[in-house]
Protein backbone atom coordinates (compact mmCIF):
# COMPACT_ATOMS: atom_id res chain seq x y z
CA UNK A 1 0.00 0.00 0.00
CA UNK A 2 1.06 3.57 -0.50
CA UNK A 3 1.28 4.96 3.02
CA UNK A 4 0.59 8.59 3.70
CA UNK A 5 3.91 10.24 4.45
CA UNK A 6 4.04 13.14 6.85
CA UNK A 7 5.72 16.09 5.11
CA UNK A 8 8.66 17.88 6.65
CA UNK A 9 7.84 21.27 8.06
CA UNK A 10 10.22 24.10 7.43
CA UNK A 11 10.53 27.76 8.25
CA UNK A 12 8.69 30.16 5.96
CA UNK A 13 11.93 31.85 4.93
CA UNK A 14 15.67 31.81 5.64
CA UNK A 15 18.24 34.47 6.43
CA UNK A 16 21.94 34.85 7.12
CA UNK A 17 22.23 35.16 10.89
CA UNK A 18 25.97 35.53 11.35
CA UNK A 19 29.23 35.77 9.44
CA UNK A 20 32.86 34.99 10.29
CA UNK A 21 36.18 35.00 8.50
CA UNK A 22 39.73 33.79 8.89
CA UNK A 23 42.74 35.18 7.04
CA UNK A 24 46.08 33.42 7.47
CA UNK A 25 48.70 35.29 9.48
CA UNK A 26 51.29 35.55 6.74
CA UNK A 27 50.78 38.50 4.40
CA UNK A 28 52.47 38.05 1.03
CA UNK A 29 53.23 41.29 -0.85
CA UNK A 30 53.73 41.47 -4.62
CA UNK A 31 57.49 41.81 -4.06
CA UNK A 32 57.59 38.22 -2.82
CA UNK A 33 55.68 36.96 -5.88
CA UNK A 34 58.18 38.79 -8.10
CA UNK A 35 61.00 36.54 -6.92
CA UNK A 36 59.64 33.82 -9.20
CA UNK A 37 58.20 35.69 -12.20
CA UNK A 38 59.36 38.42 -14.55
CA UNK A 39 56.79 41.11 -13.80
CA UNK A 40 56.38 44.21 -11.65
CA UNK A 41 54.32 45.46 -8.74
CA UNK A 42 52.74 48.01 -11.05
CA UNK A 43 51.86 45.39 -13.67
CA UNK A 44 50.20 43.17 -11.05
CA UNK A 45 48.28 46.05 -9.50
CA UNK A 46 47.10 47.38 -12.87
CA UNK A 47 45.94 43.96 -14.08
CA UNK A 48 44.37 42.72 -10.88
CA UNK A 49 44.20 45.43 -8.21
CA UNK A 50 45.96 43.02 -5.85
CA UNK A 51 48.61 44.42 -3.52
CA UNK A 52 48.86 41.65 -0.93
CA UNK A 53 47.31 38.28 -0.19
CA UNK A 54 47.43 35.89 2.76
CA UNK A 55 49.09 32.49 2.39
CA UNK A 56 48.50 29.79 4.94
CA UNK A 57 51.26 28.29 7.06
CA UNK A 58 51.55 24.57 7.84
CA UNK A 59 49.13 24.81 10.78
CA UNK A 60 46.58 26.85 8.89
CA UNK A 61 44.98 23.83 7.27
CA UNK A 62 41.67 23.83 5.42
CA UNK A 63 40.07 22.41 8.57
CA UNK A 64 41.79 24.82 10.98
CA UNK A 65 40.86 27.92 8.98
CA UNK A 66 37.29 26.65 8.62
CA UNK A 67 36.95 26.05 12.34
CA UNK A 68 38.11 29.62 13.05
CA UNK A 69 35.72 31.18 10.54
CA UNK A 70 32.85 28.81 11.39
CA UNK A 71 33.21 29.38 15.13
CA UNK A 72 33.05 33.14 14.62
CA UNK A 73 29.97 32.85 12.41
CA UNK A 74 28.18 30.68 14.99
CA UNK A 75 29.02 33.16 17.77
CA UNK A 76 28.00 36.09 15.54
CA UNK A 77 24.63 34.41 15.02
CA UNK A 78 24.21 34.12 18.81
CA UNK A 79 24.13 30.34 18.63
CA UNK A 80 26.10 27.46 20.09
CA UNK A 81 27.73 24.74 17.94
CA UNK A 82 25.23 22.09 19.11
CA UNK A 83 22.44 24.01 17.40
CA UNK A 84 23.98 23.55 13.95
CA UNK A 85 22.02 20.94 11.99
CA UNK A 86 24.13 20.85 8.85
CA UNK A 87 27.60 21.87 7.74
CA UNK A 88 28.28 22.57 4.07
CA UNK A 89 31.87 23.19 3.06
CA UNK A 90 32.71 24.53 -0.38
CA UNK A 91 36.33 24.08 -1.44
CA UNK A 92 38.48 23.03 -4.38
CA UNK A 93 41.74 22.95 -2.46
CA UNK A 94 41.27 20.32 0.23
CA UNK A 95 43.74 17.85 -1.21
CA UNK A 96 42.53 14.76 0.62
CA UNK A 97 39.29 13.79 -1.08
CA UNK A 98 37.93 11.23 1.34
CA UNK A 99 36.34 11.74 3.78
CA UNK A 100 34.66 15.09 3.21
CA UNK A 101 36.43 17.71 5.31
CA UNK A 102 33.03 18.99 6.51
CA UNK A 103 32.68 16.12 8.98
CA UNK A 104 36.02 16.86 10.65
CA UNK A 105 35.21 20.58 10.78
CA UNK A 106 31.82 19.85 12.33
CA UNK A 107 33.51 17.65 14.91
CA UNK A 108 36.24 20.17 15.73
CA UNK A 109 33.62 22.89 16.14
CA UNK A 110 31.86 20.85 18.78
CA UNK A 111 28.62 20.40 16.91
CA UNK A 112 26.53 17.29 17.63
CA UNK A 113 25.97 15.01 14.67
CA UNK A 114 24.96 17.40 11.92
CA UNK A 115 24.65 16.46 8.26
CA UNK A 116 28.03 17.40 6.85
CA UNK A 117 29.32 17.37 3.30
CA UNK A 118 31.60 19.14 0.84
CA UNK A 119 30.61 20.75 -2.43
CA UNK A 120 32.79 21.70 -5.37
CA UNK A 121 31.54 24.73 -7.26
CA UNK A 122 34.68 26.81 -7.59
CA UNK A 123 34.25 30.51 -7.01
CA UNK A 124 30.45 30.12 -7.06
CA UNK A 125 30.68 27.68 -4.16
CA UNK A 126 29.44 30.11 -1.54
CA UNK A 127 26.27 30.89 -3.51
CA UNK A 128 25.69 27.20 -4.15
CA UNK A 129 26.07 26.43 -0.45
CA UNK A 130 23.84 29.32 0.57
CA UNK A 131 21.15 28.12 -1.83
CA UNK A 132 21.29 24.57 -0.45
CA UNK A 133 21.15 25.91 3.11
CA UNK A 134 18.11 28.03 2.35
CA UNK A 135 16.36 25.03 0.83
CA UNK A 136 17.15 22.83 3.82
CA UNK A 137 15.79 25.41 6.25
CA UNK A 138 12.58 26.09 4.38
CA UNK A 139 12.17 22.35 3.86
CA UNK A 140 12.68 21.69 7.55
CA UNK A 141 15.58 19.25 7.28
CA UNK A 142 17.78 21.62 9.28
CA UNK A 143 17.09 24.62 11.46
CA UNK A 144 20.56 26.19 11.36
CA UNK A 145 23.09 25.52 8.62
CA UNK A 146 26.75 26.50 8.65
CA UNK A 147 28.05 27.32 5.17
CA UNK A 148 31.82 27.59 4.84
CA UNK A 149 33.87 28.66 1.84
CA UNK A 150 37.53 27.75 2.37
CA UNK A 151 40.59 27.59 0.17
CA UNK A 152 44.33 27.05 0.37
CA UNK A 153 44.91 28.05 -3.23
CA UNK A 154 48.60 28.64 -2.53
CA UNK A 155 48.85 24.83 -2.68
CA UNK A 156 47.58 24.92 -6.26
CA UNK A 157 49.48 27.99 -7.44
CA UNK A 158 52.28 27.73 -9.97
CA UNK A 159 54.72 30.31 -8.64
CA UNK A 160 56.39 30.49 -12.04
CA UNK A 161 53.25 31.22 -14.07
CA UNK A 162 53.27 34.99 -14.54
CA UNK A 163 49.56 35.04 -15.45
CA UNK A 164 48.30 33.48 -12.22
CA UNK A 165 51.08 33.44 -9.58
CA UNK A 166 49.86 36.71 -8.03
CA UNK A 167 46.14 36.00 -8.15
CA UNK A 168 45.36 33.50 -5.48
CA UNK A 169 45.08 33.69 -1.72
CA UNK A 170 44.08 31.50 1.21
CA UNK A 171 41.37 31.92 3.82
CA UNK A 172 37.97 30.86 5.08
CA UNK A 173 34.64 32.65 5.26
CA UNK A 174 31.49 31.31 6.87
CA UNK A 175 27.87 32.19 7.46
CA UNK A 176 25.14 30.65 9.57
CA UNK A 177 21.79 30.46 7.83
CA UNK A 178 18.63 30.03 9.85
CA UNK A 179 14.86 30.57 9.90
CA UNK A 180 13.28 33.93 9.19
CA UNK A 181 9.80 35.43 9.31
CA UNK A 182 10.59 37.65 6.34
CA UNK A 183 12.27 36.80 3.04
CA UNK A 184 15.98 37.66 3.48
CA UNK A 185 17.60 35.54 0.77
CA UNK A 186 16.21 36.09 -2.71
CA UNK A 187 15.75 33.58 -5.50
CA UNK A 188 19.12 32.26 -6.71
CA UNK A 189 20.00 32.67 -10.34
CA UNK A 190 22.54 29.95 -10.95
CA UNK A 191 23.84 27.66 -13.61
CA UNK A 192 26.78 26.12 -15.38
CA UNK A 193 28.45 26.38 -18.78
CA UNK A 194 30.41 23.17 -19.15
CA UNK A 195 31.39 24.00 -22.71
CA UNK A 196 33.83 26.46 -21.12
CA UNK A 197 35.24 23.99 -18.58
CA UNK A 198 38.76 24.42 -19.97
CA UNK A 199 38.94 28.15 -19.33
CA UNK A 200 39.71 27.72 -15.61
CA UNK A 201 41.03 24.37 -14.45
CA UNK A 202 43.60 22.35 -12.64
CA UNK A 203 46.39 21.54 -15.09
CA UNK A 204 46.52 17.80 -14.40
CA UNK A 205 44.46 15.19 -12.56
CA UNK A 206 46.08 13.56 -9.54
CA UNK A 207 46.31 10.15 -11.21
CA UNK A 208 49.27 11.31 -13.31
CA UNK A 209 51.23 10.53 -10.16
CA UNK A 210 50.03 6.95 -10.25
CA UNK A 211 50.86 6.54 -13.92
CA UNK A 212 54.16 8.39 -14.04
CA UNK A 213 57.08 9.04 -11.76
CA UNK A 214 56.31 12.16 -9.71
CA UNK A 215 59.72 13.50 -10.73
CA UNK A 216 58.54 13.66 -14.36
CA UNK A 217 55.38 15.59 -13.65
CA UNK A 218 54.98 19.24 -12.78
CA UNK A 219 52.75 19.52 -9.71
CA UNK A 220 49.16 20.37 -10.67
CA UNK A 221 48.16 24.03 -10.47
CA UNK A 222 45.28 26.27 -11.45
CA UNK A 223 45.37 27.85 -14.88
CA UNK A 224 42.97 30.15 -16.64
CA UNK A 225 42.45 31.85 -19.97
CA UNK A 226 42.46 35.41 -18.74
CA UNK A 227 40.77 37.20 -21.63
CA UNK A 228 38.01 34.61 -22.09
CA UNK A 229 37.27 34.55 -18.37
CA UNK A 230 37.31 38.33 -18.16
CA UNK A 231 34.81 38.68 -20.98
CA UNK A 232 32.51 36.06 -19.52
CA UNK A 233 32.76 37.45 -16.00
CA UNK A 234 32.12 41.05 -16.92
CA UNK A 235 29.46 40.79 -19.58
CA UNK A 236 27.66 37.50 -18.97
CA UNK A 237 27.77 37.78 -15.19
CA UNK A 238 26.44 41.35 -15.27
CA UNK A 239 23.34 39.86 -16.94
CA UNK A 240 23.08 37.19 -14.24
CA UNK A 241 23.44 39.82 -11.51
CA UNK A 242 20.69 41.89 -13.11
CA UNK A 243 18.48 38.82 -13.32
CA UNK A 244 19.02 38.16 -9.60
CA UNK A 245 17.91 41.71 -8.84
CA UNK A 246 14.86 41.32 -11.08
CA UNK A 247 13.86 37.99 -9.55
CA UNK A 248 14.21 39.41 -6.04
CA UNK A 249 12.12 42.43 -7.07
CA UNK A 250 14.88 44.74 -5.86
CA UNK A 251 15.90 47.77 -7.91
CA UNK A 252 19.59 48.65 -8.17
CA UNK A 253 19.02 51.90 -6.29
CA UNK A 254 17.55 49.96 -3.36
CA UNK A 255 20.87 48.16 -2.88
CA UNK A 256 23.26 49.14 -0.10
CA UNK A 257 26.12 46.83 -1.05
CA UNK A 258 27.46 44.82 -3.95
CA UNK A 259 29.59 41.82 -2.97
CA UNK A 260 30.88 40.11 -6.09
CA UNK A 261 33.35 37.23 -6.01
CA UNK A 262 36.73 38.86 -5.43
CA UNK A 263 38.44 37.60 -8.57
CA UNK A 264 40.10 40.72 -9.87
CA UNK A 265 39.53 44.46 -9.35
CA UNK A 266 39.29 45.00 -13.09
CA UNK A 267 36.38 42.56 -13.29
CA UNK A 268 34.70 44.30 -10.36
CA UNK A 269 35.15 47.76 -11.91
CA UNK A 270 33.87 46.67 -15.31
CA UNK A 271 30.90 44.83 -13.79
CA UNK A 272 29.85 47.98 -11.92
CA UNK A 273 30.01 49.92 -15.16
CA UNK A 274 28.09 47.30 -17.12
CA UNK A 275 25.48 46.95 -14.36
CA UNK A 276 25.21 50.74 -14.04
CA UNK A 277 25.21 50.45 -10.25
CA UNK A 278 24.28 53.71 -8.50
CA UNK A 279 27.19 55.46 -6.77
CA UNK A 280 25.74 55.09 -3.28
CA UNK A 281 26.13 51.29 -3.43
CA UNK A 282 29.12 50.14 -1.37
CA UNK A 283 31.29 47.79 -3.41
CA UNK A 284 33.39 45.09 -1.75
CA UNK A 285 37.02 45.46 -2.82
CA UNK A 286 38.59 42.93 -0.50
CA UNK A 287 40.61 41.46 -3.39
CA UNK A 288 43.21 44.22 -2.94
CA UNK A 289 44.52 42.73 0.31
CA UNK A 290 43.10 39.19 0.20
CA UNK A 291 43.63 38.12 -3.41
CA UNK A 292 41.26 35.66 -5.05
CA UNK A 293 40.19 33.12 -2.44
CA UNK A 294 37.59 31.38 -4.62
CA UNK A 295 34.74 29.99 -2.50
CA UNK A 296 35.89 31.98 0.54
CA UNK A 297 35.91 35.38 -1.14
CA UNK A 298 32.27 36.45 -0.75
CA UNK A 299 31.84 35.64 2.95
CA UNK A 300 35.30 37.12 3.67
CA UNK A 301 34.37 40.30 1.82
CA UNK A 302 30.98 40.39 3.56
CA UNK A 303 32.62 40.01 6.95
CA UNK A 304 35.05 42.83 6.18
CA UNK A 305 32.35 45.23 4.97
CA UNK A 306 30.43 44.67 8.21
CA UNK A 307 33.50 44.76 10.46
CA UNK A 308 34.73 48.04 8.99
CA UNK A 309 31.29 49.67 9.12
CA UNK A 310 31.11 50.05 5.33
CA UNK A 311 27.89 48.05 5.51
CA UNK A 312 25.57 47.35 8.41
CA UNK A 313 23.19 44.69 9.61
CA UNK A 314 19.92 44.86 7.71
CA UNK A 315 21.51 46.28 4.57
CA UNK A 316 20.50 44.82 1.23
CA UNK A 317 23.35 43.26 -0.74
CA UNK A 318 23.68 41.71 -4.17
CA UNK A 319 26.09 38.76 -4.13
CA UNK A 320 27.42 36.95 -7.16
CA UNK A 321 29.98 34.17 -7.46
CA UNK A 322 31.41 32.87 -10.74
CA UNK A 323 34.32 30.70 -11.72
CA UNK A 324 35.70 27.30 -12.64
CA UNK A 325 33.11 25.06 -14.26
CA UNK A 326 32.18 27.50 -15.49
CA UNK A 327 29.55 27.98 -12.79
CA UNK A 328 27.75 30.96 -11.33
CA UNK A 329 25.26 31.88 -8.60
CA UNK A 330 23.74 35.26 -7.75
CA UNK A 331 21.17 36.38 -5.22
CA UNK A 332 20.08 39.31 -3.09
CA UNK A 333 20.44 39.01 0.68
CA UNK A 334 19.78 40.95 3.83
CA UNK A 335 23.09 41.29 5.66
CA UNK A 336 23.33 39.79 9.16
Amino acid at each position, binding site marked *: MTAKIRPSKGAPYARILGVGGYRPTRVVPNEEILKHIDSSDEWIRTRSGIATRHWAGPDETVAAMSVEAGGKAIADAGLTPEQIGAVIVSTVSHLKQTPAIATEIAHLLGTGKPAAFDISAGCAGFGYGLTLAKGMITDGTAEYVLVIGVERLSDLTDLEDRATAFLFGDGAGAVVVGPSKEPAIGPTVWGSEGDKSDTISQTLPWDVYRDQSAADVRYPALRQEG*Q*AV*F*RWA*VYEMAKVAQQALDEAGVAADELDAFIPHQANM*RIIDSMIKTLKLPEHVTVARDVETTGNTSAASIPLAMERLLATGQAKSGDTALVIGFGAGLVYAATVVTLP
Partner: protein
Amino acid sequence: MAATQEEILEGLAEIVNEIAGIPTEDVLLDKSFTDDLDVDSLSMVEVVVAAEERFDVKIPDDDVKNLKTVGDAVDYILKHQG
Protein backbone atom coordinates in the same frame (compact mmCIF):
# COMPACT_ATOMS: atom_id res chain seq x y z
CA MET B 1 24.41 49.59 -44.15
CA ALA B 2 27.92 48.31 -43.62
CA ALA B 3 30.44 50.76 -42.23
CA THR B 4 33.39 51.90 -44.36
CA GLN B 5 37.00 51.52 -43.31
CA GLU B 6 37.08 55.19 -42.36
CA GLU B 7 33.93 54.91 -40.24
CA ILE B 8 35.24 51.83 -38.47
CA LEU B 9 38.54 53.55 -37.67
CA GLU B 10 36.67 56.56 -36.34
CA GLY B 11 34.40 54.38 -34.22
CA LEU B 12 37.30 52.32 -32.88
CA ALA B 13 39.18 55.49 -32.00
CA GLU B 14 36.21 56.68 -29.96
CA ILE B 15 35.96 53.31 -28.20
CA VAL B 16 39.70 53.21 -27.40
CA ASN B 17 39.48 56.78 -26.16
CA GLU B 18 36.58 55.97 -23.87
CA ILE B 19 38.11 52.78 -22.46
CA ALA B 20 41.82 53.59 -22.30
CA GLY B 21 41.82 57.40 -22.41
CA ILE B 22 43.98 57.52 -25.57
CA PRO B 23 43.40 60.64 -27.74
CA THR B 24 41.37 59.64 -30.81
CA GLU B 25 43.94 61.15 -33.19
CA ASP B 26 46.55 58.68 -31.92
CA VAL B 27 44.45 55.68 -32.91
CA LEU B 28 45.85 55.01 -36.37
CA LEU B 29 45.87 51.88 -38.54
CA ASP B 30 49.52 51.03 -37.96
CA LYS B 31 49.42 51.41 -34.17
CA SER B 32 49.77 48.34 -31.98
CA PHE B 33 47.15 48.15 -29.24
CA THR B 34 49.58 46.96 -26.58
CA ASP B 35 52.88 48.53 -27.61
CA ASP B 36 51.75 51.92 -28.92
CA LEU B 37 48.39 52.59 -27.29
CA ASP B 38 48.94 50.92 -23.91
CA VAL B 39 45.72 48.92 -24.23
CA ASP B 40 46.34 45.84 -22.05
CA SER B 41 44.79 42.42 -22.59
CA LEU B 42 41.79 43.12 -20.33
CA SER B 43 41.08 46.55 -21.82
CA MET B 44 41.34 44.87 -25.22
CA VAL B 45 38.39 42.68 -24.23
CA GLU B 46 36.39 45.80 -23.38
CA VAL B 47 37.35 47.37 -26.72
CA VAL B 48 36.31 44.20 -28.53
CA VAL B 49 32.93 43.97 -26.78
CA ALA B 50 32.21 47.65 -27.47
CA ALA B 51 33.20 47.15 -31.12
CA GLU B 52 30.95 44.10 -31.38
CA GLU B 53 27.98 46.16 -30.25
CA ARG B 54 28.78 49.16 -32.38
CA PHE B 55 29.48 47.31 -35.62
CA ASP B 56 27.19 44.29 -35.23
CA VAL B 57 30.05 41.81 -35.46
CA LYS B 58 31.12 38.77 -33.41
CA ILE B 59 34.78 38.59 -32.44
CA PRO B 60 35.44 35.25 -30.68
CA ASP B 61 38.18 35.04 -28.02
CA ASP B 62 40.34 32.95 -30.33
CA ASP B 63 40.39 35.76 -32.90
CA VAL B 64 41.03 38.55 -30.39
CA LYS B 65 44.65 37.52 -29.97
CA ASN B 66 45.29 38.03 -33.70
CA LEU B 67 44.21 41.66 -33.54
CA LYS B 68 47.62 43.20 -32.87
CA THR B 69 47.16 46.55 -34.59
CA VAL B 70 44.27 48.93 -35.08
CA GLY B 71 44.45 48.00 -38.77
CA ASP B 72 43.98 44.30 -37.91
CA ALA B 73 40.82 45.17 -36.01
CA VAL B 74 39.48 47.44 -38.73
CA ASP B 75 40.06 44.73 -41.36
CA TYR B 76 38.42 42.10 -39.18
CA ILE B 77 35.34 44.23 -38.65
CA LEU B 78 35.17 45.16 -42.36
CA LYS B 79 35.14 41.44 -43.26
CA HIS B 80 32.79 40.21 -40.58
CA GLN B 81 30.29 43.01 -39.95
CA GLY B 82 26.62 42.13 -40.22
